[in-house]
């Protein structure tokens, strides 16, 4: 039956666009004929800021890219700078970095799943998720003094060693989280309505996903067994035992399940990190007299001069952030400031596929598919 087309402007102020994404929809009744994403409402010129700040000053700005999971952003930039300047990092610092990043991956997936379920109308999951997220944020606050924008990982190490009483609290969190994940699975995984909404919706084949430049859990949901932690290992990941969670279906449900499984894997990694962390004497700031960034190496940070000039050169370094492959292209001209900083943000590249993903589906499916791609608009718009 032919009917008039309806144009709907979804966003930038809309309950389920996760911030300020906007979709121009051409609708035939309830079905989407064409979807055009419009982004840029949160553009802050982070790459330009990167050219104007010193290497150390830019780190707090990377926190603001993907504000749900900021540790990997810190680390991706710092890793690029370290590769550029050839800085050695103490092993303990690497362990702490991996600890924070995996904890942050859990936080990210909790928020992702929670907001997906909230978009589908079940608000309970996000509240339960935020309950556990709060515990993780408490750990972050204990570790680096901030809850979301950390500025913790520095070239040459981390800002401060882990405080007393952190590891017991972390163990408690891991134990608690294991039980909570069982709750989540009971609530969601078997739910028939959830299956109806997610299965065979927003299907994308592995080949197409690669062609669109998808990475991270979204790609692994399409059957491509790829994880940078495993296949281009960095930091201490070669020493850790974990498996890459892959699902073949390529639909919304597969992407959701991959995130669920990754949370469990991250808990597994956390346990290993806690067990194997090299013990060194804890040197607190107060004990040391002066802070580590003033140029003196500590247990968790190598020498890092206050006026830092890496040799001229360019580097592209990527890590497996919770949302996918996060890369920093840093060009140095030998001065105190980078010549060019390019950010390859996973959310931006994953969002590319949305128009073809939702073609012919309903509005509700657009929301489900958008939720499973898991974008943060700070990461998309930069």
């Amino acid at each position, binding site marked *: 039956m032919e009917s008039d087309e309806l144009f709907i402007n979804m966003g930038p102020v809309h309950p389920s666009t996760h911030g300020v994404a906007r979709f121009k929809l051409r609708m035939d009744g309830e079905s989407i004929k064409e979807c055009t994403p419009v982004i840029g409402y949160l553009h802050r010129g982070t790459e330009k800021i990167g050219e104007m700040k010193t290497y150390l000053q830019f780190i707090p700005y990377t926190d603001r890219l993907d504000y749900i999971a900021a540790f990997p952003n810190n680390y991706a930039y710092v890793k690029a700078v370290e590769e550029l300047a050839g800085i050695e990092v103490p092993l303990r610092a690497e362990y702490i970095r991996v600890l924070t990043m995996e904890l942050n991956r859990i936080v990210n997936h909790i928020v992702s799943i929670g907001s997906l379920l909230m978009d589908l109308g079940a608000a309970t999951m996000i509240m339960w998720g935020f309950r556990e997220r709060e515990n993780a944020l408490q750990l972050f606050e204990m570790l680096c003094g901030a809850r979301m924008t950390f500025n913790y990982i520095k070239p040459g190490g981390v800002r401060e060693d882990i405080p007393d009483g952190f590891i017991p609290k972390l163990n408690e969190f891991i134990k608690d989280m294991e039980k909570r994940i069982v709750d989540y699975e009971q609530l969601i995984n078997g739910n028939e309505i*959830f299956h109806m*909404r997610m299965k065979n919706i927003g299907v994308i084949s592995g080949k197409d996903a690669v062609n669109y430049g998808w990475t991270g859990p979204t790609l692994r949901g399409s059957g491509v067994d790829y994880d940078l932690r495993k296949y281009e290992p960095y930091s201490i990941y070669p020493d850790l035992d974990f498996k890459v969670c892959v699902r073949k279906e390529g639909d919304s449900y597969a992407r959701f399940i991959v995130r669920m499984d990754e949370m469990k894997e991250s808990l597994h990694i956390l346990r290993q990190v806690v067990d194997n962390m090299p013990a060194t004497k804890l040197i607190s700031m107060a004990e040391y007299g002066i802070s580590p960034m003033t140029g003196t190496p500590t247990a968790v940070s190598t020498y890092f001069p206050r006026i830092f000039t890496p040799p001229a050169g360019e580097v592209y370094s990527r890590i497996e952030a919770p949302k996918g492959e996060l890369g920093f292209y840093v060009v140095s001209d030998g001065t105190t400031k980078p010549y060019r900083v390019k950010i390859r943000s996973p959310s931006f590249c994953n969002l590319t596929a949305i128009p073809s993903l939702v073609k012919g589906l309903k*509005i509700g499916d657009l929301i489900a598919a958008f939720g499973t791609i898991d974008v943060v608009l700070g990461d998309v718009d930069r």
Partner: protein
Amino acid sequence: MLFLAMWTGDIMFENTYELIVFILNFIGIYDPIYNVFEMFGLEYLLRIIIVLAEIAALFVFILLTVMFLTWMERKVVAMVQARYGPMVTGPRGLLQPVMDGVKLIGKEDIIPAKADRWVFTLAPFLIFIPALLVFIPLPFGESLIISDLNVGLLYIIAISAISPIAILMAGWASNNKYSLMGAIRAVAQDISYTIPLALAAISVVLLTGSLSTVDIVTAQSGTWFGFIPKWFIFLQPLGFILFLIASIAEMGRIPFDFQESESELVAGFFTEYSGMKFAMFFLAEYAHLFSVSAIVVTLFLGGWSVPFLSSIPATFAVLIPIISLAAFVIKTYVIIFFAMWLRDTVPRMRIDQLLNIGWKIMIPLALLNLLATAILLTAGVF
């Protein structure tokens, strides 16, 4: 002793009017008042005053219930989600609905520039008044009924069919695409779920042979074998499930809240409403929740009848109207709690899935149920 006589069936009242007249007579003030009115030839005026008084009492009761329900909804959601819910205004936040009302009255009443002003203003009234009118033939307890219509059930279904018109008016007049889509969804949903609702109700009518709600309740008093209450839920398990699902759809609550579908259509058909007009939609929604739950109780859970009451000592028989009212309210709240509990557990369906289930599963099953009931009835099993 008169109350005892009343309970044992010696004196029956058709409705609350007669109960009030009886009580006034019992106290001994009815005749003097009647004489005063008769002096001026205004007997009908007394009748009107009494009826108006009982309607006023009903409306106050409904409004208080609705206010309580908004509080209860928030508390139940909070309990599920490991929160406190409203806590500040009044004891455990009990006065929160009052504060909400005060806030909404104080809000600016915005009418969009391109809205159809008359229809826009009329719609909230048109949805609010039928939500209250439904209660006219509902028996709240022994003799506690405004009017025992002999077509009571038909009246209820007919009155609740007005609300789609009001929703469509609100959605159309708002001149907002989200509102219009919400309205169209709501109408499609209401129409497709009123049919299984009515079919399931007709099965009950077959059992009682009457459309009068009082007859339906009376038919459910007493027990089988002394311990199973004679509720129609045991004779009509399938009918009960169908009726419950259809009534949750009628209420427009998750998993069937398409008229609102917050994360898809912002707020559905009342997106553009503010202030008291919004409050009327809000109150109507909860009045609807209460009335539909009350209908479920009336049809399938024995209404106000209490199965084991005949064993109560005669000295307490005075309390029986109150006990029956309490039984009715408790049963209704069980159904309401179930609706709230379900809302916190399941996500929303998709509109095409909802209609599919309505037309392809619910209606055939309801027809099958009706057929089975008719055959068993003819065979003399019931």
